[in-house]
């Protein structure tokens, strides 16, 4: 579909001037800038790992096993099989970031849908949906992960589904709570008065008002999902054990922490920085979406 937006710059049909607020918010806040830069760097490193990584992440070099960081041709050192840690970290980012973003996105879509419908209609719809969410919540997600792995074998999608499963209830509860208060606002009544239907009111009027806290929730959970993926890999029920992921790297290094601390500490630092970056950027996103925070006439 081609749309003419006059003078406004567009990218893939999206008007860039709509992001002016976000740009200003990020530029005016060094924490947000740091967050965005970090996230972008890690994502780029993940996406272009095959081009950027100095070594094959699987190539073993027995001559330089457990080489310390900054000590050789391997900037971050090597692991116990002599594999380049930087390369493994970059490839690991693909799985760790991909899995966590994917899982949280699925959890958000399902959870927000459930929560908005439950909150908007209330009554027995609310009861039924939220009891369903309670069941999801009561189910230990680790058991779900183990069950999925037992039935379907190890694989990225099983990890994604298991983690998504764990976050549905967080999104559902938050969305429901927001909608419960928003649906009482007069603009919802006004929307009914211009003849909008329930689906339109939920998606066009109510949900945009709940976006800010949901974004914060999203970024918090992406951070937690990275940890969850690491947990699963650490336990050996994540993706295939040979695949480098941050959690797996960390797990493999733990028995060598006394002799070669960097093998587990460096993936740990990567996790911490990413989680921090996503959270900081999330705060900026929330501020940019909260148009009410801005005062004064234009």
């Amino acid at each position, binding site marked *: 579909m081609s749309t003419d*937006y006059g003078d406004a710059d567009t990218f893939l049909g999206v008007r860039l001037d709509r992001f002016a607020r976000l740009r200003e918010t990020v530029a005016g806040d060094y924490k947000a800038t740091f967050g965005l830069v970090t996230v972008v760097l890690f994502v780029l490193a993940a996406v272009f790992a095959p081009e950027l990584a100095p070594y094959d992440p699987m190539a073993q070099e027995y001559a330089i096993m457990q080489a310390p960081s900054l000590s050789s041709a391997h900037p971050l050192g090597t692991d116990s099989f002599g594999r380049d840690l930087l390369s493994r970290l970059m490839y690991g980012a693909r799985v760790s970031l991909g899995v966590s973003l994917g899982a949280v996105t699925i959890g958000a879509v399902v959870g927000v849908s459930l929560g908005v419908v439950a909150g908007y209609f209330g009554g027995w719809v609310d009861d039924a949906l939220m009891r369903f969410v309670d069941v999801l919540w009561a189910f230990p997600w680790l058991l779900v992960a183990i069950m999925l792995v037992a039935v379907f074998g190890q694989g990225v999608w099983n990890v994604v589904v298991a983690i998504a499963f764990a976050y549905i209830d967080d999104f559902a509860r938050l969305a429901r709570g927001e909608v419960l208060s928003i649906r009482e606002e007069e603009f919802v009544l006004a929307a009914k008065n*211009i003849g*909008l239907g329930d689906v339109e009111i939920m998606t*066009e009027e109510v949900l945009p008002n709940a976006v800010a806290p949901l974004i914060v929730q999203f970024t918090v959970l992406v951070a937690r999902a990275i940890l969850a993926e690491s947990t699963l890999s650490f336990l050996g029920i994540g993706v295939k054990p040979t695949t480098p992921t941050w959690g797996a790297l960390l797990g493999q290094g733990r028995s060598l922490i006394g002799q070669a601390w960097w093998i587990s500490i460096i993936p740990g630092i990567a996790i911490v920085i990413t989680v921090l970056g996503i959270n900081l950027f999330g705060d900026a996103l929330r501020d940019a979406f909260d148009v009410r925070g801005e005062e004064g006439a234009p």
Partner: protein
Amino acid sequence: MTLLDVEDLAVTFPVEDGPDVPAVDGVDLRVEQGKIHGLVGESGSGKSVTARSIMRLLDGAEVSADRFDYRGEDLYAKSEAEMRRIRGDEIAMVFQDALSALNPVMTVGEQIAEVVRHHGDVDESAGLLSELRRKYVTGTNESAPSWRRAVDLLETVGIPDPEEIATSYPHQLSGGQRQRVMIASALGGDPSLIVADEPTTALDVTVEAGILDELRRLCDEFDVAILLITHDLGVVAETCDHVTVMYSGSVMERGTTAGLFENPAHPYTKGLLRSIPEGAPSEDGPLATIPGSAPEPTERPAGCPFRDRCPAAFDACSDPLPEHVVDGGEGHVARCHLYTEGDDPGEVTWETGATANGEATDAADRTPATEVTDG
């Protein structure tokens, strides 16, 4: 032409573990095309409930009426889908507090354009997916017909620099601007009837005057009928062609504004008119009031709900409200037992307590049962 014709409307809110609340009982309302009809009454008189029953958006209320016709068709016989078309397209609503009635996270232009796409005559998709795409991603194209129309409407309602205002959020505008935006958004679907629920109550008097002028002008220019709900008789006198006076869920009196203000018939109407402050407060002593307060809907006396506060009340007042055409102009109806058909309302005056001048009135001659004095 009669646009809206309501007869014997009753709205009851069922209450769990308690008596049902009869918010409105026996209301007749006739709104003419291209006229402003004032619905006036104090808080709790049921005027807003009456207005909202027109939109069929009273959650949990039991609505019954002998007749509830819009353009000769029964609104309450329509399907929900038909009602959704009528809302906004035929009948639009203007709320008292525009700040809370406008979506805080959308620009006002976006909100008006949305109404235009849903109801107006523009060749643009208002399907769910394209609306979602606009709302979350692209925004309405500023050269799109719906956006152009939104800007035009803002200009119509007297907003200076409409292009700029269209891209503002509601909280960035002043109260008067917001109310004008509400009116523009109500006009977005080209409605024939606008229900304005206390549109100027939240505004100061100078802004109020501007908004009322605007409504009057829209009514004359676009032949839109307006049902103006207010508790301010001054607003009614300035703006309305017809007026219906409500008290505690019932209509007390109705007629043309000129007829009703010149020849008020019902003791309640007289009491209200007498209570309008004029000039300096000290000149005529304390401000006249109607003693007592309106009864709770569940504790209304049988017959006339105003009976307990009425200085002219007598035995017949416990009978069901009558419907008397009185001599105060065309269609002037007073629902009061003091009259028989065709009486001249000028014969009865509100004279008690502080302002009584001792003259015997017709009301007194009709043997009022109680003597009410001002407190």
